[in-house]
């Protein structure tokens, strides 16, 4: 027997997945626009982000409505709480995509600093984390979610490398500080997106198992 509530929950999940799709596209377009030096693609990010903002409001409304009307318990309660948090993280990812787009536009207006090598690597890693975080939510796959958490370190490592390289290049030629800062900021934006992906993965673990792993993980050495 499918409860009416189950149908509402499915609808809500679909809403959230739609929103996640927009967010992924925004990140893709921002980074690909930078890589392909395509300003039109970069500018498309702003429109997508507005859609994400609208979706965020809709998802929140659905969650509040379900909480108020269905008073869910246990697994249902955890799912909705997780969705509310994931919703926020997705919206923040959208914001970061806009930041990347801004920084990319500025970067493209300047002399290129150096060939982009680590940044695409970092982008692939972050993109993979986002994808897996969302997949773990869709499939209620706790193992996959925990896998996402482990990959955060690789992203941090790539960011450190980019920072070192760019700083070295900037020290060599102070005229390129502007371009360097853009790349540093983009790397930092990507890292933030990765952090949001780990947040989502943590929420998935909570929704599936009821275990809150946030501080256990961060406080552990």
């Amino acid at each position, binding site marked *: *027997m499918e409860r009416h509530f189950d149908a509402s929950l499915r609808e809500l999940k679909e809403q959230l997945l739609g929103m996640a799709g927009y967010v992924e596209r925004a990140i893709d377009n921002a980074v690909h626009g930078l890589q392909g030096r395509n300003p039109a693609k970069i500018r498309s990010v702003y429109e997508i982000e507005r859609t994400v903002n609208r979706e965020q409001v809709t998802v929140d409304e659905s969650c509040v409505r379900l909480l108020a009307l269905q*008073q869910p*318990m*246990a697994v*249902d*309660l*955890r799912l909705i709480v997780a969705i509310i948090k994931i919703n926020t993280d997705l919206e923040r990812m959208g914001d970061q995509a806009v930041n990347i787009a801004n920084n990319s536009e500025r970067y493209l207006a300047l002399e290129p600093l150096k060939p982009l090598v680590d940044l695409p690597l970092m982008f692939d890693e972050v993109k993979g984390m986002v994808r897996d975080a969302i997949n773990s939510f869709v499939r209620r796959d706790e193992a996959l979610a925990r896998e996402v958490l482990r990959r955060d370190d690789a992203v941090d490592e790539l960011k450190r490398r980019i920072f070192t390289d760019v700083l070295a290049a900037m020290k060599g030629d102070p005229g390129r500080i502007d371009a360097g800062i853009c790349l540093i900021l983009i790397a930092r934006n990507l890292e933030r997106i990765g952090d949001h992906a780990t947040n989502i993965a943590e929420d998935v673990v909570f929704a599936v*198992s*009821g275990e809150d792993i946030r501080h256990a993980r961060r406080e552990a050495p």
Partner: protein
Amino acid sequence: MTTTSPFLLETRGLSAWFGNAQAVKPTTLGCAANTVTAIIGPSGCGKSTFLRCLNRLHEEVPGARAQGEVFLENGPVYGPGVDPVAVRRKIGMVFQKPNPFPALSILENTVVGLRLAGVRRKNVLRELAERSLRLAALWDEVKDKLDQPGMSLSGGQQQRLCIARALAVEPRVLLMDEPTSALDPVSTARIEELVTELKKEVTVVIVTHNMQQAARISDRTAFFLLGEVVEFGETSRLFTNPVDPRTERYITGRFG
């Protein structure tokens, strides 16, 4: 002599029958002093029967019997030489339907337990009535009409009168059998509020059909199914992250 337990009220292997039909399978539960324990479960799961075993009211039903042990403050509730009447003075009860005694005034209803136990002094009775009615958060509403019949009150007030009546004999435990199922939401909210207040005075065990109610007012919750306790634990944990899949199915409404 029994071993000292951290619980004010405790059952060990308590089971109950109606004739040959077993209503409660051996159940071991403990309620710490000044806590609220909620018992939830589908209709006919034995939760009310279990509750009624705690003050030995179950055995008053023809053909009904109970087995196993119950301890109140480490003293036996069942056993040779234990007088059920004495047990019930220490373990009060509030029922599903408000049931003030007919033809008794509000005052008489409140102190009837003491009155019939031999307390005669008018001023003593009146003082105790005021105390109980205040505890039951009813005093302000009835203090000017104590001589009116208990039946003249509204349903919610009647139920609080019944709570005052149970409290007047100063029990250690208050059993509540779906005390708000016949009441409107406002009266229900007042009783829930009251239960939380009463924790300071008594230990409460409440059977409820309303899971939100159990979640709101109890410290620990027991989930009964088909006469046995499926899960018993901290209320906040049980309602967010139940261990047993049957509990999960029940509290998320996926049974049947």
